[in-house]
Structures are given as structure tokens and as C-alpha cells.
């Protein structure tokens, strides 16, 4: 193999600086937005911006845009399996009230550490 084949794709300095600046600006935006009450959209916006920032880091700082696409596949498969983990678990935790409400929530909503007089062993204290 000749030397040229494995010459790294060298990213121009300006790209790094521009991405860095973008990340800082996005940080300011995400903090600012958090003070505006958008209801549930606060979470959506915050995660959206975070994902965009993470994408910038991955694509430019971590060279995923230029490198072997296998690395991209490895990275994305990690996110995919994480998604599977969270989503399938939530099919349980969020849907326990499908048939009966009483099975969805803990019997005692507050943990024993908030009950000053509770005897230390009667941890669940549920049945009365």
C-alpha cells in the first residue's frame, strides 16, 4: 500500500473552532429556553438541543463524518440498544394501570425514611 492510501483526512482548523463556537451558543440557548415555560415541550427542546450538540461532537470532533462508516454503525447501534432498553422497560412501568389502577402505584407512596416514628423493620407498612 502506498503512503497516500492511509493518509488521515485532516479536518481544517476552522471547522473545529466553528463547531466549538456552535456548541457554546447552543448551551446558552438551552439554558435560556429552560426559563421559558413550554410545558412538556421544555423536555423535548432540551433533549433536541442536546442531541444536536452530541451530533456535532460525534460528527466533527470524533470524525464520524469522515471516518470508516463502521464506526458510525457501532455508535448508532449503541444508541439503538439503549433505546430498546428504555422503551421496552417503559412498556411495563408506564402501563401497569392498563387493567387495574391499584397495581400501578406503590402502596405507600412515601418511603420509610420520611416516617419519623416508623419502626425500622416495618419497612413497607402496607397492610392496614
Amino acid at each position, binding site marked *: 500500500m502506498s503512503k497516500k492510501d492511509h493518509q488521515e483526512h485532516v479536518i481544517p482548523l476552522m471547522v473545529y473552532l466553528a463547531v466549538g463556537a456552535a456548541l457554546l451558543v447552543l448551551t446558552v440557548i438551552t439554558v435560556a429556553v429552560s426559563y421559558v415555560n413550554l410545558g412538556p415541550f421544555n423536555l423535548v427542546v432540551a433533549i433536541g438541543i442536546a442531541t444536536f450538540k452530541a451530533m456535532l461532537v460525534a460528527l466533527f470532533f470524533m470524525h464520524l463524518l469522515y471516518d470508516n462508516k463502521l464506526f458510525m454503525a457501532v455508535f448508532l447501534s449503541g444508541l439503538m440498544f439503549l433505546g430498546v432498553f428504555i422503551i421496552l422497560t417503559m412498556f411495563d412501568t408506564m402501563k401497569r394501570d392498563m387493567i387495574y389502577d391499584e397495581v400501578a402505584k*406503590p402502596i405507600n407512596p412515601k418511603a420509610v425514611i420520611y416516617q419519623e416514628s416508623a419502626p425500622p423493620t416495618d419497612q413497607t407498612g402496607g397492610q392496614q
Partner: protein
Amino acid sequence: MNIIPEKNYLTYPKGLKSWLFTLDHKRIGLMYLFAIMFFFLVGGIFALMIRLELFSPGKDIVSADTYNQLFTLHGAIMIFLFIIPSIPASLGNLILPLMLGAKDVAFPRLNLASWYIYVFGAMFAVYSMIAGAADTGWTFYTPYSIETNTAVISLTTGAFILGFSSIFTGLNFLVTIHKLRAPGMTWFKMPLFVWGLYATSIIQVVATPVLGITLLLLILERVAGIGIFNPALGGDPVLFQHFFWFYSHPAVYIMILPGMAIISELISVHSHKKIFGYKVIAYSSLAIAFISFLVWGHHMFVSGQSELAGMIFSFLTFFVGVPSGIKVFNWVATLYKGAVRFTTPMLYTFAFLILFSIGGLTGIFLGALSVDVHLHDTYFVVAHFHYTMMGGTVIAFFAGLHHWWPKIWGRMYNERIAKITAVLVFIGFNLTFIPQFIMGAHGMPRRYYDYLPQFQGMHELSTYGAYLLGFAFTIMAVYLIHSIFKGKPAGNNPWGGLTLEWQTTSPPDPHNFHEVPVWTHGPYDYDKIKVTPDLEKELETA
């Protein structure tokens, strides 16, 4: 006459230090082999003690607490210290780079580190036995594992550390398979053993970290009462089960996929026949690896998880069955128009096909929601997973061990005794576990120290089977160890295999190959290439 090369990886370089600091994948594989066989012995002794205790109801040899510790240690040792590293870390390390025509794995130092991490983790596990062994079952379910006063922390720390060993092996194999294949070896010209280990490695690197964080949280739960899994502190114990099974269900495929990989290899070599449906077998390994991440909730149908989750997990579970079934059919079809030799590895292969089929088919019972409600946590489940893990993985491991034994040591064991032993293993295994299916379906719960008199007959049969099995394994140990010193030289290619490990000497050179091999044919081209096994040549000349 076959001869053993004077300079091989076993003899060169010499000295204890050259072994302890070796970077040679073959030596590391061998060190793994010794370590896991030791723990197979320990776990096996625990199993025999459990069976002896269960021979009759009430107390036989140990107290209830000791019994609970015995089954916990039996499970934890067999899973974390034996089965998970068994095929990948021992046979995989020994054979995989040879098959690929590589000089070593991609990261030899990491490979050695993973062995030391294994030993370190094992030491924690052994320490926990001395320091009041855990009695939680290998599943460590909360809140029991939080409140029991046995040595849960040291055992979970051990399992946590062993996880890293497993991750590093998987990572090493992934990179090795991607980057170090011999010239000419494209993806679909790789031996199926490599494909199987590739799929296994994916699961190892993806699932094991979740076990790591789960055990870490459990340890924190015990020392700091963080409350995520502890209902007394507002946590949810069912969430622990999700965390645990997100690893531990894929983990059973970490265990079985390498077993399938060995069988794919052996059925072709010992019937001297091209494997039937190469690509389908390769793809189904990947499919199993992927689907295995989607089905963990089938361990939790009666745990109080939502009905929706139960339905989804049951549905997805069945789709793991399809690729497994396809593989079995492909293996049987491979025999068609072959030249089947009834060698010891082939007998174990047949045993695998029968036992794994039973294991797989009984899995269908447990995947079906309503039937699982009845069978969950009974001996039916115990029998089912022993059929897959032991009848599947362990039998495949012994098949592979007998297959590559002449390559590893350059010497052959006594085939006649080995075949008789294989038959004994098969009988002993079935005698142990078939009664467990029946009593499980009748409602005998698992993890019971004592039981109702109506189950006594079945338990007695099971105990007899277990001791027959133990006896057979003892014979195996004797003839295998004997062969290391006294066995007849086996030749470079005793079975007539086409893959690259048979192209080098037995035992291999420290650098595997004298020159870089080039891969010109498929791994199972028995229709194109005529190769006479060395063992047959030997017979002809005699």
C-alpha cells in the same frame, strides 16, 4: 507416522514466566481452559451436593441455609465462571485466530489482561464462599439481596469484575474478525465458528455493561441504601428484574451461540460434507443476537409487570425460536449425501442436536403466556435451561474440546473410551433432567430445600442421573489428562478439516503459521477438495 514438532507453542518459550506473561492467544486460551475446568469441577461438586440433599424430603446432608448457598454458588459459578467464558475465551482464543489465519488476536495485551481480570473476579467469588456465601440465587433479586446478611457484595463484585473480562474478550474478537482475516477470506468465506463467535461478541459488548451498572447499583443499594430497587425506600424491585434480565437474557445467547458455532463446524467436518445453508446459519446467528435483546421480559410474566409488556415480550420471544429451529434443520440436512463418521466429536454433536431440540421446544411452553404462568419458577424451567445450557452449550463445548484436542496438544485420546463416555453422559443427562420436566409440570417449585413426598420418586431418579453424569465426567477427565502425556500423535489434520487451523502443525507453532496463509476456498468445500484425515491415513498404513 505422525510426529509432534519439537518447537511448538507449548514448548517454546520455556518457563513459568513465559506463561504468566505470554501474549500468545493459544497459551491464554489454554490458561482459560484450565481455569474454567477448575470451576466446572467446583460447580459440579455443588450440583452433586444439591442432588444428594434432594434425594429425599427433609434434611439429608446440609441445612436449609447451606442448601440455599449451594444453589446460589452452583448457579453463579457455572454461569459467570464457567459457561460464559467456556467456549469463547478458551476454545475461541485457541482456535479463532488460527481459523482466520492471523498471527494473534488484535489486542494481545488486552487478551492477557482479560485472563487476569477473570482470575481476579474469580478470587472475589471464592472469597465470598469463605466469607458467608450469598444465598440469593444467581439472579440477586431485590429486596432479598439487599436484606440478606450473607456475602452478597463480594459475589456481586466478583461478577462485576468478570463482566470486564467478558467485554474485553468480546471486543478483541470483534476487532480481530473485522481486521485480521487472512487475505482472501471474505465475510461469507469465514468458517461458521467465526460467525457464531462474532454474534456472541456483539452480545457480550452490548449487554454486559448493563449488568455492570445493575450490580453496581445493587452494591450501592446495600452499602448506601440508594433506593432505586428497594421498595422500602420507594424503589421498584420489578425494575431490578428489568435491569438484570436485559443482560441475563442475552447472556444465555452468549452461552448458546458459541455452542451452535461449534456444531455448525463439526457437523460439516465429521460428515465430510458442505454445510447446508451456510448463509442462513450465519444470518440466523446475527438474528438471534439481535432478537435476544428484545425478549427479556418473558422472565417476568408473573412478576407484576404490565400486561402490555407481557404481550410484547411473549410475541418477540417466539421469534428467537425460528432462527434456532432453522439451524437445527440445516444441521440435520447437512448429513444428506455426506460421509458420516461416528467419531467422538460427532457423537457429542448428535447429543447436542437431540438435547438442544428438547431444550428449544420446551422453551415454547415457557414463551406462551398462559402456560408460563403455570410453569414459571418450577422444575420445568430448571430442566428447560439445563437442556439448553448443559445439553446445548456444555455438550457442544465437549464436542469442540474433543474435536480440537488433537490440535491443542498434538495427541489423540482413546476414542473407544471417549465414545462410551459420550453415551454415558447422554444417558446420565437425560436421567437427571427428564424427571424434572415432569415434576415441574406437576407444580414442584424450584429452589426448594424440602418437598412434598409425592415428588420423591422423581427426585431420586434425578439424583441417580446426576451421579451417573458426574461419574462420566470423571472418566472424561482421566482419559483426557492421560492423552496429554501418553496419547498417540494425532497429525496435523486428524479429522480432515478444510479450515486454516488444520493447515498448521499440531500443536501449532508459536507464531501459528510459518508463512501468511492465503484463503482460496470456502471453509466446507468437500465437494471440490479431497482431503484425507490423518487418523485414517494412520489406520491405512497400520
